[in-house]
């Protein structure tokens, strides 16, 4: 009887404890809307579909409205999204915007269209217009060709932006997974991406050096971001000094001040090679990485890394985009490198690194990166 009473008391106390856990005031994050990264005069050229979709509705841009509705239907553990005007009494209000940084129509090895979009969830300080953090969100949505062989790009990109597998849904997932404490971590930035001269001659005609370096820089940033590193965006050409041009869909434009990186990553795409076999092809890439701690100017990691992918040959299919397998190889390499910077694996470096000290360097570096 007394034991039962004791157990009941404990149970009651635990129940009260759980119910009355303090509801701490969540940090407010103000929603600024959707926008575009890069030069104002390039927006129409770089993001024709985002501009088309946004301009379909007025006065609030379509992507802004759709993303706001998605956010409002969900709850966030670590912060609260505020849709009102900024509280001027706050010393440093934190703003958030969904910013498009790349739109591209690619083709797979089977010649099917793929809508590729890269965006960032940009968190910035309202008063100083300083970037606090950026979460990269790359997506790719497969489409089909019409009977006449053409591609309905508008319909494909509408899906890519607005469908359940599209950008807005991915952005919501990324937002839900965001912890504001991550913004206090060590900062990484891809600051230099170059293509070796001998490789430039092998690039397909439709792929420019600028386009490829931008793609590589953004991809690396995205893969690092997925591993919860605090990443400063790579923006070749759109940054002047340490500023990144940014324009909201409601036409407010300003330069976002970028903070200094703690670690700078230099990437050189050295070569792309292929080997053809009767039933499959092997496509490999060699990329040199150098990671430097900025304030001490110490190179903490340097090695050439190699990666190859195998592609099955399909009969009677004329692969329009022979560059696609190289892109797959690069993407896999960047994704796995980002994982290795969190938890280095000796076997991986033995397989992929030219430098024998690569694993040791990565192990020491991963401790500093936290």
């Amino acid at each position: 009887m007394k034991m039962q009473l004791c157990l009941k008391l404990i149970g009651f106390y635990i129940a009260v404890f759980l119910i009355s856990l303090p509801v701490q005031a969540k940090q407010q994050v103000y929603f600024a809307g959707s926008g575009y990264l890069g030069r104002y005069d390039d927006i129409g050229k770089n993001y024709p579909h985002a501009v088309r979709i946004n301009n379909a509705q007025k006065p609030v841009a379509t992507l802004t409205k759709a993303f706001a509705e998605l956010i409002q239907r969900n709850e966030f553990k670590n912060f609260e999204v505020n849709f009102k005007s900024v509280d001027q009494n706050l010393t440093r209000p934190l703003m958030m915007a969904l910013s498009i940084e790349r739109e591209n129509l690619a083709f797979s090895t089977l010649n099917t269209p793929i809508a590729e979009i890269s965006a960032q969830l940009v968190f910035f300080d309202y008063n100083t217009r300083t970037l606090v953090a950026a979460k990269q969100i790359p997506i790719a949505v497969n489409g089909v060709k019409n009977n006449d062989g053409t591609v309905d790009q508008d319909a494909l990109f509408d899906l890519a932006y607005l469908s359940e597998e599209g950008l807005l849904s991915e952005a919501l997932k990324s937002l839900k997974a965001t912890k504001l404490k991550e913004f206090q971590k060590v900062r990484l930035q891809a600051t230099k991406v170059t293509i070796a001269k001998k490789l430039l001659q092998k690039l397909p005609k439709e792929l420019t050096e600028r386009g490829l370096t931008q793609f590589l820089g953004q991809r690396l940033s995205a893969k690092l971001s997925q591993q919860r590193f605090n990443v400063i965006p790579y923006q070749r050409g759109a940054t002047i000094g340490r500023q990144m041009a940014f324009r909201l869909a409601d036409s407010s434009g300003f330069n976002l001040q970028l903070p200094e990186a703690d670690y700078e990553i230099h990437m050189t795409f050295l070569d792309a090679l292929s080997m053809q076999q009767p039933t499959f092809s092997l496509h490999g890439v060699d990329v040199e990485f150098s990671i430097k701690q900025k304030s001490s100017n110490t190179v903490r990691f340097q090695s050439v890394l190699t990666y190859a992918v195998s592609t099955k040959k399909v009969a009677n299919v004329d692969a329009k985009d022979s560059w696609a397998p190289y892109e797959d190889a690069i993407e896999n390499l960047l994704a796995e490198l980002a994982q290795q910077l969190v938890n280095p694996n000796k076997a991986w470096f033995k397989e992929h690194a030219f430098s024998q000290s690569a694993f040791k360097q990565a192990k020491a570096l991963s401790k500093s990166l936290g």
Partner: protein
Amino acid sequence: MKILKIKWYSFCAILLLALGFQARVPVNGTIVLPTAGLQAAGNQGNIVEATAMGQVNYSWSLDNDERQAAMLMAKKSLVRNLIAQKYPNYFNNYETKEEQIISNIDDYILSIVVVDEQQDKEAKTYQVTIRAGINEPKLLATFLETSEKQGQIEESYLTFVFVARENPKHGFTDKNDGLKQDIKWRVSTTNEVDIAMGNIFVNNSFNVVSPSLVEQDTGYQFEVDKFKLDYENGDDISSVTLRNALKGLKDLEEPVHYLAIGTLDIDQSINDPVTGNIKVAVSVTGQVLDVLRRGARKAAVGPVQYFGEGPTYGVAKNNALKSAAQAAAKVLAAQLRANNIK
């Protein structure tokens, strides 16, 4: 069995008591157990971010004291580097207060991130690199307190006349080709400039007096409109205007010690291709004259260009004027402080 029951009840009682001590009942009656507070990121005052390094030698093995010593060295470097770069005039003051600051350094340094740690086991050294935010206003207050106590700093009245000038035809012309001399500027005083400049001088502990408040007391010997008239036709104040102004300010019952004068010339606007905004440049020139010493120049700035951006011309112009006014006032105030003038 009885002993087990007693032990069980004792355990329950102790558990309840332990939880009870930690609980508190706030006004609304909900029982709240203490948890670690969530630190709001970024809601802090004027914070300057910087990176610095600290290194120590150790003998046998690296222990916690040595790590802490390296961390303290890094924090000290953060503060020293900030003073050396941003406030070189205060460096001597910092050195007299260094011990006090270092002993309370965590009051000045916020949000530390350890960027790198390097241990050289052969050389027996340990190096830590940190990035942190520095509470600049608090640090500044320490130096202001120091400089106030040190020797002969006089509290002075200061008034200023800074005019905004716009070429009705827009655009600058080369002074040497003489065309500029033929320009009749459209001159005005603006609220943005007055407030921006006034705040800087006030924050540097000057007693700022609005010119409109002293004009009548000087019998209109000092009159803003006369300055505007002179600036309409050129870059210089006429000797008559200046002499009368100095005399008027000097003869006041409580003389205004310093007169700051200058121009902010507004250039034509351009469309910024990067942001799509309208961009306006403002060129600022100014000087501070010592009223009690026959108008001797005590500080000068410019010509320096500053830019402002905005969705409309008006917004861009005002932003440019504000930036230029603030920057010019900071330079002038710093030069005055360097001469122990306040």
